[in-house]
């Protein structure tokens, strides 16, 4: 009756559970559907920075320029802007008529933004004055508005620079590179720790995997135990001369397998469909997923022991899981949250688990770089189990 027998019995119980699952069509469907839904939701509802489809955004160019001394340079300007646009972001450009029409179209939601060339454009250009280009955007949709005005401002800025650069070169009789260094003596370029750029998906995929695996175990474990208690089969297991620890262990093992399968589905989808790459060690990724689950098992077992039936168990779980999902920095960086939320966040194991996993997957960190998170997860797991196991024993002989 040593540790070997406990393990043997645990495997037996896990194997039985998995066999049941493999014959449960609905259960299998849910197993595959859950991660798919998660990915779909995050992938298509929260678009990443570069993946907003710009060609869907409509921009109207309103040229109010009245010319100066029978000359007009605004037409050249507009076509140059258009050229840069079609070579880069490719917004849907169209010609407008008046400012009122533009505002009306934005209000109707037919147009996302407008570029207004002022009446005195040619005058300013020819008389060595700054010409004011106005960008009007649909501020009812701040994210889109920000993106579009940013992009448009960039286009105009870069045009502005080009013109200035060639003007300066001509005036001072120098090369255009020299002119550039006069205009902007310092140039900035940024890059990450690993090669290539990371998208919102690289940010979100690790947290999503961690969350799915944890949720799977957290909902699966109390579900499995209370279900067996309700249909009565748990009694059959408990009248056998086995250590009750192996019941928890076996059930956890089965749920863990289920959770890891879901995590793997997410990983495959993320790499195949959304171009996420793993920069760290894949074994470390799996190890972290396991550790994440370990840190949570105690909580799951404790809830199971306290809940009267399946329904109240899952209610209690939801009450814990739901806020955790949003406060652990899976969808939104913890560092950008208000102070008190950051405090709450620092008490949630999911915060550390998903952060560590992100560092490994995105930054290629090894164990030394994530040691603090690892330690916190291990301690949390042990403390929770120390609370949960006695509760579980008590529940079994209620």
């Amino acid at each position, binding site marked *: 009756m040593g540790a070997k027998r406990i393990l043997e019995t645990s495997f037996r119980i896990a194997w*039985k559970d998995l*066999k049941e699952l493999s014959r449960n069509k609905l259960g299998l469907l849910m197993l595959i559907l859950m991660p798919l839904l998660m990915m779909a939701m995050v992938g298509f509802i929260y678009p990443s920075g570069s993946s907003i489809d710009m060609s869907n955004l409509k921009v109207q160019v309103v040229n109010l320029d009245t010319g100066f001394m029978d000359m007009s340079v605004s037409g050249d300007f507009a076509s140059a802007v258009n050229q840069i646009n079609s070579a880069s972001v490719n917004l849907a450009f169209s010609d407008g008529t008046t400012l009122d029409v533009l505002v009306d179209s934005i209000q109707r939601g037919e147009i996302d933004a407008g570029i207004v060339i002022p009446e005195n454009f040619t005058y300013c250009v020819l008389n060595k004055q700054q010409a004011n280009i106005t960008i009007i955007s649909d501020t009812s949709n701040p994210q889109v508005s920000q993106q579009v005005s940013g992009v448009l401002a960039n286009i105009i800025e870069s045009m502005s620079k080009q013109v200035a650069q060639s003007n300066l070169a001509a005036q001072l009789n120098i090369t255009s590179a020299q002119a550039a260094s006069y205009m902007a003596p310092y140039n900035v370029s940024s890059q990450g720790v690993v090669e290539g750029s990371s998208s919102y998906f690289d940010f979100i995929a690790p947290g999503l995997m961690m969350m799915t695996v944890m949720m799977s175990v957290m909902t699966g474990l109390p579900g499995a135990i209370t279900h067996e208690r309700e249909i009565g*089969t748990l009694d*059959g297991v408990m009248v056998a*001369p086995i250590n009750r620890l192996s019941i928890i262990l076996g059930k956890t093992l089965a749920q863990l397998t289920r959770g890891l399968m879901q995590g793997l589905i997410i990983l495959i989808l993320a790499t195949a469909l959304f171009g996420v790459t793993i920069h760290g060690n894949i074994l470390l990724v799996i190890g972290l997923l396991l550790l994440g689950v370990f840190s949570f098992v105690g909580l799951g077992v404790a809830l199971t022991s306290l809940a009267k039936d399946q329904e109240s168990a899952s209610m209690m779980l939801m009450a814990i899981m739901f806020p955790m999902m949003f406060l652990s920095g899976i969808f939104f960086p913890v560092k950008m949250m208000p102070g008190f939320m950051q405090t709450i966040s620092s008490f949630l194991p999911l915060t550390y688990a998903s952060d560590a996993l992100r560092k490994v997957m995105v930054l290629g960190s090894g164990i030394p770089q994530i040691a603090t998170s690892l330690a916190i997860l291990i301690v949390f797991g042990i403390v929770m189990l120390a609370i949960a196991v006695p509760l579980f024993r008590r529940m079994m*002989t209620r």
Partner: protein
Amino acid sequence: MIEVKNLTKVFGKFTAVDNISFTVKKGEIFGLLGPNGAGKSTTLRMLSTLARPTGGVATIGGCDIVKNDTKVRNLLGVVSEKMIIYERLTAKENLWFFGCLFGIPKEKLHKRIDELLDLVNLTQFKDKQVGTFSTGMRQRMNVIRALLNEPQVLFLDEPTLGLDPQSSVEIREFIKKLNQEKGTTIIITTHMMLDADLLCDRIAIVDHGKIIALDSSVNLKKATVGANTSIINLGITNLNLDMIEKIKTLPCVGAVTQEGETKLRITVHGEDAFDQIIDQVRTLNGKISSIENLQPTLEDVFLHMTGRNVRDSVESKVLVHTRRMAKMPVQRGR
């Protein structure tokens, strides 16, 4: 073999099992008989180490059920109220799983499973998922599951509940055979008089968590029908509710139950009881078709002890038009 002393179980403020004591000898079939909610299952759950007693002690084969629970579990086979089988596993997989939990060596377990399946004629279904079985087949599975470890003591909680009469007979015969051939000590709980009467060497009648009588079926009946008391079956062709009420008011009449459209089962006391009843029926213009002096059943015993019917709520409501309903088996609540 089993000794129970002042065993008590309290749920919150409610005392489900109230200070009961009894002993069961080796090789005996012992019955706990009582209405729903009497505390039979709770008693068995405590003895099975599934529920912790609030008070009192019990030993099985000399082992304390709380302090020595693992040893006790090795001696036990438990058939509880709810069936302990996994529907998505086959018959064989189910038995294999539970056999492994008992640590039975592989070779031996193989043989044992084949033997048991054969014993209850399920060999040809051994690779079918149990979910496809009929209730009778499931119950046979459920019983042999409890026998995997060759238990010295077998607990059966309402083993015939929800079974058709044919399956009930099979299960009863199986239990009897097991007891005779292997000498297994058995405790069976039931609210069916027939089970208790046919199977048990001794019966404890349980009501509201207390044992109110404990003896063999024969002795219990003897005690009920004393020199002065008898049970009669009275046939009245134009029986009606009013007549029943009037008969009940007679001082010599104890319990009255209606059995069929024209028959009454009456417990009577005193010398001139027959005269009194016949007079009463006559004044009500009743037409007596038959009078029979009956042997008492356990039902009468319970009625005598508690003034209530065992299958209280359901069958005491039986009136003239629902006769056929009364004979239907209670559905197993699953």
